[in-house]
């Protein structure tokens, strides 16, 4: 009996020791990972790309004829995998219509197999070659003949937007069509600040009142989503660009809000800073 008791005590000591070691190792790993990522993040403060900005890779403009496409993807991103079929169709259509397709991947070596099996073909680039910050994957950038971004689509696209992209690839002259770029225009806070100097804009925050009271951007008008279809025509100026603060929303939800605004007869843009929900966060900084 005494032996059994001693064995139990020893077992308890061993388990406790193992637990302590595991917790200590976990804490050390977390601390290392956190400090390492913070250190690398400090290295790169890349500007975020916005509509109208020149799209540069390795310092040179990306362009080709009437339009070009830059697809930023990753084999480890689940939303990229979910969009695999669309990306395959896009690469086929781009090749058929002589539209250059550039594919930016985290590492050419590790992504080669993924692109091969997914049958996505194009001119491969590395993320580190890009002259701007990637906010999330997948990101699809439509570039006009001047090398400027005409549309920046972050996250897995809804089917209607996929169709719209394919239509533009089939007829590149549509790239300047206002409906698409207006409907999906994404502005960073800095860009919005610049934009409002030259154009009449109104910033709306579609959160509920309680949320708005806790946190909102300066100058934002609070119109909760549910009230938007009614209040928009009473309170918003049709000659202004309606900028929806989409920072906390998924691409799909942001699209739905912007569709509502467009349907009501307003030009709309989304203010999005940070990573949208149905895109994969790019946590690793690029040197």
């Amino acid at each position: 009996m005494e032996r059994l008791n001693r064995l139990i005590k020893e077992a308890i000591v061993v388990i406790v020791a193992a637990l302590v070691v595991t917790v200590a190792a976990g804490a050390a790993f977390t601390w290392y990972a956190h400090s390492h990522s913070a250190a690398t993040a400090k290295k790169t403060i890349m500007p975020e790309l916005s509509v109208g900005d020149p799209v540069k890779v390795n310092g040179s403009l990306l362009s080709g004829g009437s339009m070009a496409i830059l697809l930023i993807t990753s084999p480890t991103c689940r939303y990229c995998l979910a969009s695999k079929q669309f990306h395959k169709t896009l690469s086929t259509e781009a090749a058929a219509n002589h539209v250059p397709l550039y594919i930016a991947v985290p590492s050419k070596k590790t992504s080669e197999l993924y692109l091969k099996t997914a049958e996505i073909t194009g001119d491969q680039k590395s993320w580190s070659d890009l002259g701007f910050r990637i906010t999330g994957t997948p990101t699809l950038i439509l570039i006009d003949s001047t090398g400027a971004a005409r549309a920046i689509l972050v996250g897995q696209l809804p089917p209607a937007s996929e169709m719209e992209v394919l239509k533009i690839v089939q007829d590149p002259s549509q790239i300047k069509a206002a409906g698409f770029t207006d409907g999906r225009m994404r502005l960073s806070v800095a860009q919005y600040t610049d934009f409002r100097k030259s154009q009449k804009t109104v910033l709306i925050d579609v959160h509920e009142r309680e949320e708005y009271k806790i946190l909102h951007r300066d100058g934002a008008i609070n119109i909760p989503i549910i009230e938007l279809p009614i209040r928009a025509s009473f309170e918003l100026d049709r000659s202004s660009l309606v900028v929806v603060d989409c920072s906390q929303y998924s691409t799909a939800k942001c699209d739905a809000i912007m569709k509502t605004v467009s349907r009501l007869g307003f030009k709309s843009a989304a203010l999005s800073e940070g990573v949208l929900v149905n895109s994969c966060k790019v946590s690793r900084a690029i040197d």
Partner: protein
Amino acid sequence: MTRAIRVLFGAMLISFHARADLVGFVGCMVLRRSAEVVVLPDYPQSAISRGVAGIVVVQVRYGPGPTVNSVRVLDAPDQETASATVEAVKKWKFRTPPIASTKGPGEKSGRLIFYFRIVNGKPAVVDAAGEAMRTSPNPK
């Protein structure tokens, strides 16, 4: 075994009560369309003299009958316009909208929006959804 049956029975009772307490939320237009009796708020004299204007948004609960069960003010420029709106909305009567039948057997809830405006010195209360219905009979 008996204990398990008791727990199961208790869970069933709780879920039944939860179901009975369900509130079907309806959009502003659906709510406004289902209104059969509409009473616009009076613009309070003191608010007019003080030049108080703005938006009043109320959350209305009604059902299963046509009468209003409760009115909660979400937004108002002052207490008087809020009270005037609550008094008026309490007199509204609704029919059960078809869409709400799928949203539970209990109460229905939605928002009503009113603009209290003084244009060229003339006070006016605008029922926003009613006005939207008038200008666009079938908005999506």
